[in-house]
């Protein structure tokens, strides 16, 4: 901010002897909810007391920076997101339409898939270190995660890992891909680093 006008317009009285603003009234003022005599009295005080004025300014800044701060109302059709939404819908109709048609007419189950290993998959992979999974619950949870990610896989009741899976230590480690192949009721899994 400009130092000159800032200095000239900042109230200088520290109101050492008088009572300072009530913090809840100050909060209500910042929210635009203080009215009547209470607002009039508080404004009079703020125009004189440098200390309360400073608290007001800082609080206003904090409220504006808060993630829940209400955005400035803008007509919805003027927002970039409205244009983006419209463009996305057109794009989806053009590109997704034929795919949906194809999906509806020939919905086949996937026999193999590759997907990025996220935390949810890691948790399942790290649950036990045995290469062959026997626990029904674990297998069911794995299938439900695949469903959640949009993979309608062929049914299987056994899972075999190609090699033991260990968590990568680095926070910025390479992405990993899980390769799945389902054959005769058995899911064969292999985790490889993404190239």
């Amino acid at each position, binding site marked *: 901010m400009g130092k000159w006008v800032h200095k000239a*317009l900042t109230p200088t009285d520290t109101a050492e002897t008088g009572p*300072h603003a009530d913090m*809840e009234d100050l909060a209500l003022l910042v*929210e635009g909810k203080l009215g009547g005599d209470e607002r009039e009295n508080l404004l009079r005080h703020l125009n004189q007391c440098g200390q309360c004025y400073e608290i007001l300014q800082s*609080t206003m800044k904090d409220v504006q920076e808060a993630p829940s701060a209400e955005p400035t109302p803008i007509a919805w059709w003027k927002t970039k997101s409205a244009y983006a939404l419209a463009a996305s819908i057109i794009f989806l109709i053009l590109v997704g339409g034929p795919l949906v048609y194809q999906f509806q007419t020939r919905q086949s189950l996937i026999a193999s898939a590759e997907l990025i290993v996220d935390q949810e998959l890691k948790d399942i992979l790290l649950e036990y270190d045995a290469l062959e999974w026997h626990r029904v619950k674990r297998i069911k949870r794995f299938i439900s995660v695949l469903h959640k990610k949009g993979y309608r896989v062929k049914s299987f009741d056994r899972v075999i890992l190609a090699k033991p899976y260990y968590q990568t230590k680095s926070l910025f480690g390479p992405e990993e891909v899980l390769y799945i192949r389902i054959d005769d009721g058995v899911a064969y899994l292999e985790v490889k680093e993404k190239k």
Partner: protein
Amino acid sequence: MKGNSIAPEKILASSEIIDKIEAICKRHFADENEQNESFIFILDRLKADNFRRLRAYKGQSQLTTYVYSLINALIVDYRRKTYGRRRIPASVVKLGKWAETAYRLVCWQKFSFDDAYDILQVENLFAGSYERYIKAITPIREAPCRENPAFQSLNEEVAGVAENPHGADANPLEALIGKLDRQRRVKALKIIRAATETLSHDDQLLIRLVYGADQPVNVVARMIGLSASSARRRLKRLLTQFRKQLLAEGIREP
């Protein structure tokens, strides 16, 4: 966060609030030790007397707004507690109030000596010429100042005074002030300050916060019960009044 039924301990356990306290401390203090000390001070004060300050919340405003105002009030308390211990050197005190103000401006608030001269003029604390001022500040420049290593410099570019690089563009008052020479600048600032003080409380706060603190018009408008467009119209009218008064005193844009 809303409602007054939340236990104070839970408020302080919220990572959102703790992060906010940390952010506010960082905003106010550049020094890491001071950031940490003020952070601890605020936490202690919020916990003091069985969370008295947090318990005073009546639930009329948003809890977060209330807590933000509390934290900012505690920052002021912390600064007073810490800086209140600082003493203006006796060699400065004996020169009078103008010297104390100059010392406070340059050493504590990190204004340059040149800027301090202008502010002293606006505050009617030093009536003499600039040449006289330069001679008079010699004992102040020799006084110790731990807080501002650039203290003894007369250079205008003293670091630390927050300035918004866009301020002058967006702020017509600052833009005008920036173009004036020292004498006119001091005069113009006096006029602007005096004119502001004659306005209604609503208008005063509108001018102070929009042009003195760079707060958005719509935010200030909501506080004083106006729509953003009404507030803009009012600001325009107030600026026209200021302009007339400046012109009447012979101040115009060079």
